[in-house]
């Protein structure tokens, strides 16, 4: 298995494998996404507390988790690149930034859509929203730094350093709802209500993850072009 | 053997500067890196002194990999680049005493002697912005004498020097080599030193590879 992982770190091999897998993954993603969105947005029973308005959570929560996961992955790949000089790690990190940025923006946007009926405001400067906004700025900063460097090799290293400096912010997002009394729901928000025994919210994040995975993989595939 | 280079490969802007480059610099040797403008001489020097790690191959200091022996390497190697590394608002003496401290040396009493060797007697307390380019260059060269380094890596050391300065520098370089040190340099000036010169010609290497 280690040999297979080691092989995967070769851009050429990765390009070939990901190129073969792409059509299948795109097909699976499209199907799962449609099922997930339609099921979550239309067919789940209404929440006892929030009524119909909670449905946006089916997009908001996975998007937020994916965004944070993206940052962790970017930082992890950055560390791998700096320590072991694995070129593929830098390409993965490079793919993480725009994908993570979009999912962060999506999380913030859907969060605002949630906020208007539930809290009466589309924005508030509490700990979680502020730290998520910081993460959006950090993603943009990493992309800006990479494009400012003419030399690809130097730019890759610089972005790796910057990603690692900013990774301190991500645990703050996760734990901000525990450390401070904020308007944002606590972590128990996932056990929304007394719905059926197999609530679809278990499935939807997984569906959404496919979208991320395919998009992310396609970026890696593009960057691995030999 | 002081510095050994094995199978060095470097490319810049998708152009291969040099490949399969092997040579070894021992005590008492003076090496000149030759090549036309843009052939990669400065890049090679910067790789040799450890400022640039965008290459593949090995650079060994006394048998050990440069990255691992960095402290010993930095202790025994002196690099003179294009920029003089002199802060213009400080005096010559202040600049040199900081350079001494940065090499862990406390030979500040030798600063005057070093400046004298480059005909800068009496200039210790003059702020460097008041000096001419040639004088600033000579303050920078004075660092070379104060560094107590065995290997000198010099990028165009004769720039901005007048005829006498050139002759004096050539004498100094030969003396250093005779005392057991080593020198790697690039220059467009035709050297007339009292010491055997070995050369690495990057143009020739590139030509050979192409053929």
């Amino acid at each position, binding site marked *: 298995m280690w040999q297979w992982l080691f092989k995967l770190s070769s851009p050429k091999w990765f390009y070939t494998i990901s190129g073969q897998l792409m059509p299948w993954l795109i097909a699976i993603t499209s199907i799962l996404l449609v099922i997930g969105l339609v099921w979550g947005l239309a067919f789940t029973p209404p929440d006892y507390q929030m009524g119909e308005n909670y449905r946006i959570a089916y997009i908001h929560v996975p998007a937020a988790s994916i965004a944070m996961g993206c940052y962790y992955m970017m930082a992890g790949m950055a560390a791998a690149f700096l320590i072991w000089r694995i070129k593929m790690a830098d390409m993965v990190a490079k793919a993480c930034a725009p994908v993570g940025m979009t999912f962060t923006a999506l999380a913030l946007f859907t969060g605002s859509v949630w906020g208007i009926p539930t809290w009466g405001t589309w924005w508030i400067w509490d700990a979680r929203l502020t730290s998520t906004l910081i993460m959006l700025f950090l993603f943009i900063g990493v992309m800006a730094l990479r494009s400012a460097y003419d030399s690809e090799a130097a730019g890759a290293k610089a972005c790796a350093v910057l990603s690692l400096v900013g990774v301190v912010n991500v645990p703050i997002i996760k734990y901000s709802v525990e450390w401070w009394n904020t308007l944002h729901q606590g972590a128990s928000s996932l056990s929304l209500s007394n719905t059926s025994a197999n609530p679809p919210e278990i499935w939807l994040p997984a569906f959404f993850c496919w979208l991320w995975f395919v998009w992310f993989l396609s970026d890696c595939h593009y960057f691995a072009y030999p | 053997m002081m510095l050994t280079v094995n199978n060095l490969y470097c490319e810049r802007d998708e152009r291969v500067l040099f490949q399969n480059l092997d040579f070894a610099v021992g005590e008492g040797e003076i090496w000149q890196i030759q090549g036309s403008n843009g052939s990669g001489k400065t890049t090679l020097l910067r790789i040799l002194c450890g400022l640039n790690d965008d290459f593949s191959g090995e650079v060994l200091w006394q048998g050990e990999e440069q990255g691992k022996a960095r402290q010993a390497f*930095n202790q025994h190697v002196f690099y003179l680049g294009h920029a003089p590394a002199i802060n213009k608002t400080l005096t010559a003496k202040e600049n040199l005493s900081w350079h001494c401290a940065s090499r862990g040396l406390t030979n500040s009493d030798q600063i005057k002697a070093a400046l004298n060797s480059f005909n800068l007697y009496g200039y210790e307390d003059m702020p460097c912005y008041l000096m001419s380019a040639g004088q600033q260059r000579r303050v920078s060269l004075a660092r070379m004498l104060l560094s107590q380094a065995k290997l000198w890596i010099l990028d165009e050391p004769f720039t901005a020097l007048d005829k006498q300065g050139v002759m004096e520098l050539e004498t100094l370089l030969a003396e250093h080599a005779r005392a057991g040190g080593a020198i790697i340099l690039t220059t467009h000036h035709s050297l007339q030193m009292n010491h055997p010169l070995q050369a690495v010609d990057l143009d020739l290497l590139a030509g050979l590879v192409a053929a």
Partner: protein
Amino acid sequence: MSIIAATLRRELLIAFRSPGEIINPLMFFVIAVSLFPLGVGANQEFLSEIAAGVIWVTALLAVMLSMDSLFRADYEDGSLEQLLLSPQPLYFVILAKVASHWLVSGLPLVILAPIFASMLSLPAEGILPLMAALLIGTPILTMLGAVGMALTVGLSKSGLLLAVLILPLYIPVLVFGTGVVDSALNSLATSGLLALLGAMLILALCLTPLAIIAALRISVSL
């Protein structure tokens, strides 16, 4: 002389010989703070509410603008390369450089802050907490700014890239810093927030030099 003492001496000598580099960021702070009452009106009650925030934001921007003098001159005249080739431990040299930079850019802000805070009608009980918060916070800002500066010093057209990179990292310091003053004004304990700031300072002291050294090596190899 040890390398730390030698670096401190060198940096302070250079700073005092170009007084413009010290005075200009302070003048920016002074002028920018004065813009606020002119822009939002001189209502004392309103000003006293925004005073802490205004002082903090302008101090933060002043620190960021003063960052250029940290590595640029050394990069251009080649001293930065020599620094990286020095056999002395770089960690302490970098700390010494950042410390001397803070002494001439951050510390004067801490000293000037009470004057301008009272000009913005900040109540008296907020002034000492403001100074304490700035005293702990401005070194953090300087160190984070140094990371950004090390990353961008080699770029020819970096413009406001430094701002894009480090202002997001400044936000937590800003939030806690103004929080200290708000707690003091509401007669709540400030020790918790000051301790948090102190923890951030220690974290920055330990980790930012490593990031700065890595970034400087990248910039020098360009």
